[in-house]
């Protein structure tokens, strides 16, 4: 052949790309940050007013509790007022601007019920437990769902497909609290495989936290059933989504073309089928990771697990406005942030979807 060979610089184009991007990227970044801040403000404001529209206020609920304990109404009211020290009679807008002002200084306020404990401190205490338990369980269920979804798509119409698909649909349809209660009943009460104390809290009382084997084992024991319930209830939906996504990817021409090109089965499964099929699930995962910060209200409540979810459900019950606001704010920030990360990640994983400014 007598054609001339044009040089194909790999490094040069890479450098050129780097140089070209910043301005577009910067604009995109600034716009996204502003949009995110606006979203967070909007959600926070809505939450502020909506939780105050809920029937009853912290004082009423506290008074009711005291009444149930047998106190006289007058006594209960004075006691509640002095214990809570909350002035709920102030105009709502005044309270709102005070809340915003404090928020701007990074102050989330103090809990009404646990007097003098800053909300931020409560959240910081609870957050690690939620991130650890729900976070790892989410990642495990995602990985398992992707794997099983691909297996089932490759072996469609085999017994394993029928078995797993039906199982997944059933688990997806069952509410997680039902699974949790059933499992606790079966494993702890009927068959007595697991001591009931392992399903209450995050650690056994009396075990000092620290880098000791006892502590780790105890934490894992308390975590196991909760995580198992979460994985059981979530893997099905990941699997079913991955199955349909894989099946449509398998029908793509580029997969046939890859076989025609003689690529190894492993390369086709990972880089041609798996990667493309899991793209739509990545966004969902990123969003779910955002929600991890909010914990899982139902599962944590059942297992009395000291995560954010339990904190929220307790705050909801006692109408502890500052705690609710704090938890919702942190969750909102996490979701907005993970949404942003999902966008970037998606653009990186799928070159067809690049940020708006980059298109010529």
């Amino acid at each position: 052949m007598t054609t001339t060979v044009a040089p194909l610089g790999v490094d040069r184009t890479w450098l050129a790309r780097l140089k070209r991007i910043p301005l577009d990227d910067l604009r995109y970044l600034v716009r996204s940050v502003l949009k995110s801040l606006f979203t967070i403000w909007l959600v926070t404001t809505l939450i502020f007013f909506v939780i105050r529209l809920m029937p009853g206020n912290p004082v009423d609920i506290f008074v009711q509790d005291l009444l149930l304990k047998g106190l006289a109404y007058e006594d209960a009211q004075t006691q509640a007022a002095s214990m809570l020290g909350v002035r709920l009679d102030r105009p709502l807008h005044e309270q709102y601007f005070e809340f915003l002002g404090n928020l701007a200084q990074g102050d989330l306020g103090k809990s009404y019920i646990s007097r003098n404990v800053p909300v931020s401190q409560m959240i910081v205490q609870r957050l690690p437990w939620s991130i650890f338990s729900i976070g790892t369980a989410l990642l495990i269920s995602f990985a398992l769902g992707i794997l099983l979804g691909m297996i089932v798509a490759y072996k469609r119409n085999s017994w394993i497909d029928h078995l797993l698909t039906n199982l997944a649909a059933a688990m997806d349809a069952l509410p997680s609290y039902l699974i949790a209660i059933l499992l606790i009943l079966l494993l702890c009460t009927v068959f007595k495989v697991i001591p009931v104390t392992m399903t209450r809290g995050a650690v056994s009382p009396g075990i000092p936290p620290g880098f000791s084997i006892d502590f780790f084992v105890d934490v894992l024991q308390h975590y196991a059933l909760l995580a198992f319930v979460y994985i059981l209830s979530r893997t099905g939906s990941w699997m079913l989504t991955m199955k349909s996504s894989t099946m449509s990817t398998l029908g793509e021409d580029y997969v046939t073309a890859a076989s025609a090109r003689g690529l190894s089965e492993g390369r086709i499964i990972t880089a041609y089928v798996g990667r493309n099929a899991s793209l739509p699930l990545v966004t969902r995962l990123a969003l779910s990771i955002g929600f991890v910060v909010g914990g899982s209200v139902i599962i944590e409540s059942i297992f009395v697990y000291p995560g954010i979810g339990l904190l929220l459900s307790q705050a909801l019950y006692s109408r502890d406005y500052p705690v609710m606001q704090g938890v919702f704010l942190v969750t909102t920030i996490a979701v907005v942030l993970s949404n942003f990360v999902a966008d970037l990640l998606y653009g990186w994983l799928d070159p067809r979807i690049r940020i708006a400014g980059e298109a010529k």
Partner: protein
Amino acid sequence: MTPTLSIQNLTIEYAVRRGAVQAVRNISFDIRRGEVLSLIGESGSGKTTFGLGVMRLLPTMARVRQGSLLYRRDAASDALEVLKLNDAALRAFRWKHVAMVFQSALNSFNPVLRISDQFADTAHAHGYLRGNLLAARAAQLFTLVRLDPERVWRAFPHELSGGMRQRVMIALALLLEPQLLILDEPTTALDVLTQRNIIDVLKELRHKLNFALLFISHDLSLAADLADRVATMYAGKLVEIGDVFTIFQSPRHPYTTGLIRAVPTLTSDRKDLTSIPGSPPDLIDLPSGCKFHPRCPLASARCKSEEPELEDAAAGHQVACWNWRAI
């Protein structure tokens, strides 16, 4: 001279709920070294199934009922029975010996990988060049198919136009110097000018590089332009095969005649244009005898009961029709 690919009694069926779709029925012919053979026929005549069958890329519901595909890389080498290759050997065979450009080459590239990565994947799978050597070889091929290597190499598929992608696919197909290139309606999705361009590229390529080309098409003018020989397929069967001049000037099968008459030419009158009456047969429940007889103007009693096999009408010109002498 020994043929590049010798197809003997190839029969392919699809198992569907209603029964067996007889997509390819007992086809035998040779693809000669370095020739361009055009396979023409209506949609659903089994052309694509045949092409996929040669690559053994048929979907799982398809079965090769019988036949043999003997491949020889060059006159001196031993024949390879493609239908008997095991998985590893088949993987090595594909693309190195027979490459294929698909009907929808627009979707033949993984959308999330750069062109360079897809070349590297292919090269890697066959233990071929890598790194800068591969880039240089690719640049050579891109120039051959009239593409700017700088523009294409690091691009993602969606950054290229349809015609460009099709040419990248042709370049990729030529990477390992296959002896047979199957083009399955490579220009269907493209506009007329781009079609022309691709055909010109192909003509040029086959003179520079010596490979055989199986050009599957329903576009007779493109087939006529490119081909050395033309084969007509109807209802999964080869009904006529001969060199391009014979087929277009004195076709012997009424179906081929019908196909040619259905295409307008620059010089002919509009009243010369006729379409073939009826529609292609149901491949599950084929008519008796000659499968074309319900649509054939020359159908006789014999056509309804007995199916004709290919017979010599002239030297190098075979036709499967009882009444070919009457045409």
